[in-house]
């Protein structure tokens, strides 16, 4: 009876709602936007015959209330960081302070045109200049370009810088070394930059195998791309020797900064001998991940790489005197420009034909809105706070690791070593063997516990990998709940592995046919 009722009742509205797109809502003639009245004398034929569009794009026809309700309900079909634990390894899903959204929305930042005269964008340029300086100090490398749009974009910049550096010396190198544990963007970047990928093996401890590195390092090697701590959550103890080996053949050492959040205040890529570093501002310095961006991937480089940096860069100049004359205060939008001796400017020259710069990686100056948030974060935390970030990130990760090793270490052993930095990798191989559930099943079952699963099946070097990054903003209570959930799922599987194999149950949809989706791709709606 009650079952019947429950069934007939269906579950919550969000679950019962069948997915209908905005194109399936609305009705012909409905609209939200009302154009301003045409206030100029209309003229016909402004677009030559044949160039005018005959059949306008079939965009939705919906009222504002329909649009709001559609997307609000869609949003409820997402799991998000504000709602629960999100230990997605390597992605650093830490709390997003809402102060950042508030300051980024200030019209002086949000409605500033990228080509506004530097004389009327002093606030933005000062912010970018200060951010360049801060990132240089954090990286331990003197020169920064804020331009790259994300980490992988920064990687591309870095490898192209390496190419420019060698080309400038008349060298034609062909290979780039990446460890087996490297993130997919590293090899993908190497290919796009026109190099051949050479994999370097790992040693028993999960670090780079020095012998293999030495064996593969020769004059054709342009660069070694390294993530340290690695995607295994291990700080490579041989980093100094690796730097020596690589520099010996004149190659550059590239630091993938995705895991920089583990070592702030303890060590810096520059101090380790790296030539080029990219930051994932959206990870280390928190940024709402937006369902897959936006982010930003600034790079910091050593002196020898500096001449090749992308342009423009923000520079600080002696007080501005346009055409020798001080700008009239009226013209200065309420004296904004007459304030303050140091004046900030965009240095475009180096972008000119004759320069050594690799040029532009994108339009304008980069993801400024992301810079605003990062700057606010660095100002909020300060030197101490940033160190605290790394300490607690590492503390939280080791706490979760310690509990898991003690309670389910036999089923989900740590891939390498005993401890970790800010994240760690477990292998689900024994679990699969003994309980008959895969890492994927464990992940799906976690969804029923209201948690986002860790990264799965990465890094590739670990069988049935589970990459866990709790981050520093989670409480002990949350960490404990996560461990408890995993323990209970394994216990449940001992009883009945089917439950995990068929999980999840309580989500808006259940497991989806991905193979079918790829076989007959439907990537747009037919209207």
């Amino acid at each position, binding site marked *: 009876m009650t079952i019947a009722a429950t069934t007939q009742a269906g579950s919550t509205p969000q679950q019962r709602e069948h997915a209908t797109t905005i194109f399936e809502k609305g009705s012909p003639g409905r609209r939200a936007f009302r154009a301003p009245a045409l206030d100029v004398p209309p003229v016909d034929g402004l677009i030559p015959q044949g160039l005018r569009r005959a059949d306008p794009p079939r965009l939705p026809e919906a009222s504002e209330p329909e649009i709001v309700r559609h997307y609000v309900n869609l949003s409820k079909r997402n799991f998000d960081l504000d709602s629960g634990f999100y230990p997605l390894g390597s992605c650093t899903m830490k709390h997003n302070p809402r102060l950042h959204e508030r300051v980024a929305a200030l019209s002086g930042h949000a409605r500033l045109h990228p080509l506004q005269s530097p004389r009327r964008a002093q*606030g933005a340029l000062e912010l970018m200049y200060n951010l360049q300086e801060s990132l240089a100090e954090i990286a331990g490398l003197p020169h920064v370009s804020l331009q790259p749009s994300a980490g992988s974009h920064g990687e591309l910049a870095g490898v192209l810088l390496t190419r420019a550096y060698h080309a400038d010396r008349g060298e034609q190198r062909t290979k780039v070394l990446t460890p087996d544990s490297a993130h*997919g*963007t590293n090899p*993908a970047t190497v290919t796009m930059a026109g190099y051949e990928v050479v994999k370097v093996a790992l040693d028993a401890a999960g670090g780079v195998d020095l012998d293999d590195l030495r064996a593969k390092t020769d004059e054709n090697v342009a660069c070694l791309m390294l993530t340290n701590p690695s995607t295994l959550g291990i700080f490579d103890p041989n980093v100094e020797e690796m730097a020596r080996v690589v520099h010996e053949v004149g190659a550059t050492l590239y630091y993938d900064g995705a895991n920089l959040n583990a070592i702030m205040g303890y060590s810096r890529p520059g101090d380790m001998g790296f030539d080029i570093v990219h930051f994932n501002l959206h990870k280390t310095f928190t940024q709402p991940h937006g369902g*897959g961006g936006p982010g930003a991937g600034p790079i910091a480089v050593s002196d020898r790489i500096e001449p090749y940096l992308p342009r423009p860069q923000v520079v600080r100049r002696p007080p501005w005197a346009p055409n020798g004359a001080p700008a009239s205060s009226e013209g200065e939008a309420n004296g904004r420009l007459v304030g303050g001796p140091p004046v900030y400017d965009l240095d475009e020259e180096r972008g000119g034909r004759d320069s050594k710069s690799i040029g532009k990686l994108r339009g304008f100056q980069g993801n400024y809105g992301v810079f605003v948030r990062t700057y606010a974060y660095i100002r909020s935390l300060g030197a101490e706070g*940033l160190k605290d970030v790394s300490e607690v990130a590492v503390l939280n990760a080791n706490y979760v690791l310690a509990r898991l090793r003690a309670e389910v270490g036999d089923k989900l052993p740590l891939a390498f070593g005993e401890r970790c930095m800010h994240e760690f990798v477990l292998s689900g191989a024994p679990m699969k063997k003994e309980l008959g559930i895969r890492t994927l099943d464990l992940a799906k079952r976690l969804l029923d516990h209201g948690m986002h699963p860790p990264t799965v099946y990465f890094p590739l070097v670990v069988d049935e990998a589970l990459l866990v990054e709790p981050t520093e903003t989670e409480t002990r209570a949350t960490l404990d709940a996560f461990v408890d959930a995993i323990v209970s799922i394994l216990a449940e599987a001992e009883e009945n592995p089917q439950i995990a194999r068929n999980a999840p149950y309580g989500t808006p949809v259940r497991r989806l046919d991905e193979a079918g989706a790829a076989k007959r791709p439907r990537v747009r709606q037919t209207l």
Partner: protein
Amino acid sequence: MAGYTSVTPEDLEHMLATIGVGSVEELFDAIPAGVRLGRPIDLPPGEPEQAVYAELRRLAARNVSAEDEITFLGAGMYDHYVPAVVDMLMSRSEFLTPYTPYQPEVSQGGLQVMFEYQTAISELTGLPVSNASVYEGPSAVGAAAYLAKLANKRTRVLVSRGVHPHSRATLETLAVGYGTSVDEVGLDDAVTDPAALRKALSDDVSAIVIQQPNFLGSIEDVAALSEAAHEHGALVICAADPLTLGVLEAPGHQGVDVCVGEGQSLGNRLDFGGPSFGFFAATEKHLRSMPGRIAGETTDADGRRGFVLTLQTREQHIRREKATSNICTSQALNALGGVVYLSWLGRHGIVDIGELMLQRTHYARETLAALDGVSKLHDRPVVREFAVKLDVDGVAGVERVLDRCAVGGVNAGYALGRSYEEHADGLLVAITEQRSREDIDRLAEVLGTAVAAERAAAGAGAGAGVAS
């Protein structure tokens, strides 16, 4: 401890005991002495929220934004009105704070948004397939050239001088990595010179890159250019302004193989240049070599409709060095803003706004050209943007004129000479639905005065700038 962490002394004790170490520092033992910083990071101490807010506000106040002046500055990003619904939806935790939808069961919101976005972009461009966005406009052009290289293995790209200077520069930077050479095709009377194109074309050309409307605001005959390119088996890459595609023929209907563009004008803020998003659409046969995320429709275990990231074998996390692109984190949130904006604009709105810009651009062009010392740079049909010539002394003169206009609270546009030596005296003026006839008349008034003043000053041999 400071900031957003929350380890109490009691937590710390318990956690260290569980781990089996005596201090947090111990957890960093793996870091060799030789690479340790050994001193505090040299940054100012942290500040409470109210102080950081005050500081960021101080900086904001030192910028003259589109809210502070009447701006006709465009050249790639435009001051369109961002409807409040876009902000409201982009700031929903559920859209703002998750990451890439790796777990589709709990990411249907984001995945369906991608699917709707892809449908909208496909409709706009007239091309069957779209990805879920790339970084932004110019790098999208670069990505398109890579797709062309993968498609036909050719190593030469022809790019029209009508393409945005930033797109051309980005293309050149990235082409070095592709092993592709980039040659420019000049303009004739403000549009891509068909003769020059035909001359430059040969069977080693991987793709041609054009822009609609081009940087000078003029409408290109895309179909004709495409035909020429196709004769040599080259792909046609067109960078388009999405807000003009309600009135301009769809690139996909004009033989374009890959249509990309800057998405900022679709419900995204100016943000001093980013973050925005780049759109990327192509013909069916390029689907499996597209860069970036693509959402696809499918069904779940209970037969319910659902969406997933599909064709991931293209991507770096699966295919690694064989991936069709290295892109990972992209611009999902900005693309959400884009599709919400397009839904808000709607099927009729996209035409209305295009028509409004078309008419106002014409009016503004005629009005400015009627001023003393101002003349049309060309007579071609234009939409949303146009160029005039100022009878002043080169770029410096034009920039002084811009300063004078700024004094009058008007941003008159972009000094064309900054990227086109041949148009040192050019001024590029952009029109949006936010620039009323009244604003345009005000521009004419201020610009007319500024030009006159500049010519007087120059005549007086002074050229002394705005102070005069």
